[in-house]
């Protein structure tokens, strides 16, 4: 669902994190979606099975809020306006509510793939040779 990310690499190194964080903050605000009241997870491409399934698994309240935010942003976009400043998405509200579910689904799918590709060797006979086989 997502492009390769440097984030884990950076997060592991505090000095690098300290250096990049202000840049990331600036970029997040400059991207413009917060001014339309959206969250980062609202603008993930959803035209694939994984995200569709994740959307189905959203709790009803969150699914409703998501649709509301998207429709509001759509209206703003159509009328070439931004929301009033107090309605912009706050940084602390910009949480990955959907990414968590997507990751879970990806883990599930990866596990299935792995199990499909498993090479099965017959269990060694239950005698002394079993011990030496391992």
């Amino acid at each position, binding site marked *: 669902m997502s492009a390769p990310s440097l984030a884990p690499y950076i997060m592991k190194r505090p000095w690098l994190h300290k250096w990049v964080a202000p840049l990331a903050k600036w970029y997040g605000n400059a991207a413009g979606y917060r001014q339309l009241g959206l969250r980062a997870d609202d603008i993930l491409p959803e035209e694939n099975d994984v995200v569709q399934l994740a959307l189905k*698994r959203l709790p009803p309240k969150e699914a409703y809020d998501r649709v509301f935010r998207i429709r509001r942003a759509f209206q703003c976009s159509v009328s070439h306006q931004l929301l009033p400043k107090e309605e912009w998405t706050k940084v602390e509200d910009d949480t990955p509510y959907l990414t968590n579910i997507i990751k879970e689904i990806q883990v599930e799918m990866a596990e299935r793939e792995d199990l499909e590709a498993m090479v099965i060797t017959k269990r*060694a006979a239950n005698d002394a040779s*079993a011990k030496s086989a391992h």
Partner: protein
Amino acid sequence: MFSRSTACRGAQRAARQAAVRPSQRRGLAAPASGSFQYQSGEANGVKYASRDYAGPTTTLALVAKAGTRYQSLPGLTEGLQHFAFRSTERRSTLRIVRESELLGAQLSAYHTRENLVLEAKFLRDDLPYYVELFGEVAASTKYLPHVYLEEVLPMIHFAHKRFLADPLDMAINSAHSLAFHRGLGNPTASTSSHPYTKYLEADTIEWYSQFAYAKPNFALVANGAEHSELSKWTSEFFNGVPDKPAEQILAGTEQTKYYGGEERIAHDKANAFVIGFPGSSSFTGKFYKPEIAVLGSLLGGESSIKWSSGFSLLGNAKASPGTKVKTTSAIYSDAGLLYTAITGNAEYVAQTAKSTVELIQKIAAGEISQELFSKAKAAAKFKELEYGQDIAAGIVYTGSGLVSNNQAYQIDEVAKAIDGVTEETVKSAAKSLLEQKASVSAVGDLHVLPFAEDLGLKV
């Protein structure tokens, strides 16, 4: 890709253990050290019973006192049943399935009125793997909302549909609810969509699981496993299970009382008629009456021998060969229901119902030949012993006996009790049936099916 060591961990472990202790493995030809009797014990607070007879396979079951009788909200038992063997903290659903497939095992979960049973059948050497799996299912199943919606709910819905399409099932459930009202009277499947539209959620099922899988509320029963082995693995793998339920649920725990009554349900598919009377509790319970089993087989209805209508009274008295009659002595931990279920063409069902009551009156009056009586006694004894040998039934009764009354179901003693039944006790049992209120349920063409009053029964 999974390395072999993770994917077949259980298999490997089982193999290794067998290799270390080859003397504990017994080939097919060796004589059985165990007997028909269950040995019971307690390890780490978990009750277990085992019966070791020769054979390369084992049946292991976790019997929890969480059947429909004990559910505090409708549908909880079914929900819990379908959550069995789903993702746990350590393994996903898929992995449990694949690992079991690799070991060649069978997993199933079902419920009765009193018990929820998780069952696994596998090769003898895999015992540790399955004890561990059961420990995990009981302690750390994840009750996720999306699993409930995607996998559990459709199953409950199917069970509901199946129930509505089966008049016999409806009639038997209706007779139970007439006889016992709440508790044992709870239907075994959803009778309406209420349970899952109104009461059931993943959270509620999780809450109920903490009660159902608390140590005092379940027992492990194994067939074809060594007692010492089972004891060892049980004490090792059941640490995550709560020592006592966080909250005592009292629903269904009070002594069952018999009420009786009549219910008529229109159904356009087929006809079913059930006449029920207070019966006998299980052998491990307080109200065990062996004469009820003999009376049940005397009334009978189904033949156990090919090309013959059988010796039983109803087998001979039924109105047409196409009419199906069966008398069952349903036994529960503290009560029972002796019922005759009749299905078939409405007119014939009505006639057969009438002759059922007449036959019970005849038994009460003592107009039954000695020969028939001894046949019934032999059939009852055979059925009881055969039932005990049958692994599934033995497991449920033993587990339920361990949890409710702290003793295993000992089949030999049940057979002895049936030997002690005399003609006189059966006669007085039949008499007492007619004196009490019956539970009569008619499902189908209500224009034809008779009322209990017409049959001469008290309701």
